[in-house]
């Protein structure tokens, strides 16, 4: 799984430009899934057929990552940018970006009156080494991702776009290990989660699942002076209860907790105050879809060095398998 994850996190795939990631995933699951298709908005949908007596489950992880798009090139060849998804400038000064063409660039910042104040996005620029505007190899509309390789620190991994290539890797791993299931399981690798969840929204509409789960990362409360949050790295995958976009269907939460307990998989319960996932868009699709979310604890989300613990990842896959192998019972509180 680590090799697959490395390929995925080092791929290029800002919001709306997920082609490279989709190609990597397709290669990884070719021959493993019973059916693979791409929907009109670019989401990759792989189906594992069940024995026919189960339900239709949709598991979704998003392929896109946050990135930048060029809005202006000045006379000296410096590019100004705006964000694709939520970008925190403080994480990126002195960092590097990579454009679809492979072109690299350095992220610089204007001189500021007060160096103690974090810069705004419009105070950043990209230096691609151009001498002037005519020789600048990038143009308005070119898209870049942050450039960073994956590294291991003990049993913890750091990389850009763990959010949510980690979820993609976990779905691939689940698909590989899933021998038999009563259910028809849809593995959806969605587009544009970081802005509108357009990919998951439209996939849910066409698939019409009985139940859906989003697999994504969530930030933690275990770093110095963090916002209080009862989720820590290494304490197990988190079963979401609530975030700023949704209340998880309590029947789905109970089902997830029950399976985790039966399989003796450590888990945490997540309440996220800022942010949401594809689950929010799926839940409100058509006449409503009971939807939950499995979150992997991740430090420094939306930075180029998102950190996860491999034990959480492994337990997350185990929980996904426990959920899709057995009958799904959604009962009222």
């Amino acid at each position, binding site marked *: 799984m680590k090799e697959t994850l490395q390929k995925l996190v080092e791929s290029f795939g800002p919001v709306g430009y997920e082609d490279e990631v989709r190609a990597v995933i397709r290669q990884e699951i070719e021959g493993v899934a019973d059916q693979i298709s791409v929907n009109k908005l670019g989401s990759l949908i792989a189906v594992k057929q069940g024995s026919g007596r189960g339900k239709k489950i949709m598991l979704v992880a998003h392929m896109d990552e946050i990135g930048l798009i060029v809005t202006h090139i000045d006379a000296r060849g410096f590019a100004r940018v705006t964000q694709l998804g939520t970008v925190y400038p403080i994480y990126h000064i002195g960092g590097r970006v990579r454009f679809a063409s492979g072109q690299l660039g350095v992220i610089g910042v204007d001189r500021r009156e007060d160096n103690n104040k974090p810069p705004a996005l419009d105070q950043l620029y990209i230096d691609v080494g151009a001498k002037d505007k005519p020789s600048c190899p990038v143009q308005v509309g070119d898209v870049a991702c942050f450039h960073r390789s994956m590294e291991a620190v003990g049993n913890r991994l750091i990389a850009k776009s763990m959010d949510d290539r980690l979820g993609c890797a976990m779905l691939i791993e689940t698909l590989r290990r899933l021998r038999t299931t009563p259910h028809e399981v849809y593995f959806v690798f969605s587009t544009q989660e970081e802005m509108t969840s357009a990919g998951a929204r439209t996939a849910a509409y066409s698939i019409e699942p009985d139940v859906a789960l989003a697999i994504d990362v969530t930030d933690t409360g275990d770093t110095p002076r963090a916002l209080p949050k*009862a989720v820590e790295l290494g304490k197990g995958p988190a079963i979401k209860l609530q975030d700023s976009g949704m209340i998880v269907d309590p029947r789905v*939460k109970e089902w997830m907790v029950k399976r985790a307990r039966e399989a003796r998989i450590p888990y945490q319960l997540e309440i996220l105050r800022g942010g949401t996932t594809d689950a929010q868009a799926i839940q409100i699709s*058509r006449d409503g879809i009971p939807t939950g979310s499995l979150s992997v604890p991740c430090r420094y989300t939306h930075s180029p060095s998102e950190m996860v613990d491999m034990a959480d990842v492994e337990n997350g896959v185990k929980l996904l398998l426990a959920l899709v192998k057995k009958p799904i019972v959604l009962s009222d509180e």
Partner: protein
Amino acid sequence: MDVNALLKKLSQTTGLSGYETKIRAEVLAEWGRFVDETRTDKVGNAVAVKRGYARKAHRKIMLASHMDEIGFMVAGFSHGFLRVSPIGGIDARVLPGQEVIVHSRQRDLPGIISSTPPHLLKPDDRSKVISLDQLWIDVGLAPAQVNRFVSIGDLVSIRRDVTELKNGLLAGKAFDNRASVAAVAVCLELLATIQHQWDVIAVATVQEETSALGAATSAFGIAPDAAIAIDVTYGVQYGSAGNEVFPLDKGPTIGIGPNMQPKMTQGLIEAAQRIKLDHQIEPMAGSSGTDGWLIQVVREGIPTGVVGIPLRSMHTPVEVVSPRDVEQTGRLLAEFIGGLDEKFYESLTE
């Protein structure tokens, strides 16, 4: 119908967004007395169907009133106290000193929202609003005991019985939007005595306070020909000004603006005029902030109207409402529905 008794019962029943099981049972029992059929849909909306007399062309009008209320979820612990996360638009200014109920797995525990004594605060902090992160719930348990009784994810609701004020006004929690649920009950009862062509599908929606999930999904499932969202609106009170507030006891408001199909607004005004019912025009320049906002863009679009019940002290445990406005709102809805025919349906696309 004893509107006061119904308002009291609905207000005092718990039903936080996403966890509407108890209030749903109450609503289905109340509405069920006046309709042909009731059901609960996939996401927990309460649906009640009262059939119209039309043999052909079954047109459907959906009435949406949300039954969820704001509250909290336990998010963490410290020294035996509970830290909570808000469900819906909680107003931190009104919280210290409130009584709450912690709905733990085994049983309901009484609790209070603790407050630091003014004597211990720095002078500067005494006039400041305490943010939700600084509010702690005291259930009386010692640190070592608390995890035995309470878990992360347990719900916390405001504990408050309805108080009757002068002039028959009622004060209590969750009149946003149980007042409208009661108004729909009044409407359904009246429809027993009014000939109506269209089928009426009343929905008590879930999760309006968080995402309007229930409104969007039920509208998709029902695919009505028209819809009315009934929700509370701002009552005139001390400190309020401008044209966004409406006096109590002057009847329901009828929304006018981009969320409302003009024919729906006009139809509601005409219905009020036919029976000489007090009503007020409520301009809504953008989102109505009600279930109607999402309903109107479901499927190929649903002609939507918005009716409001004036309410003072919104999103506090002492929301003030007039039962007479609730009754008048029910009468307005019934009169409007009684007037629905094929001509009205065709006028929607003229």
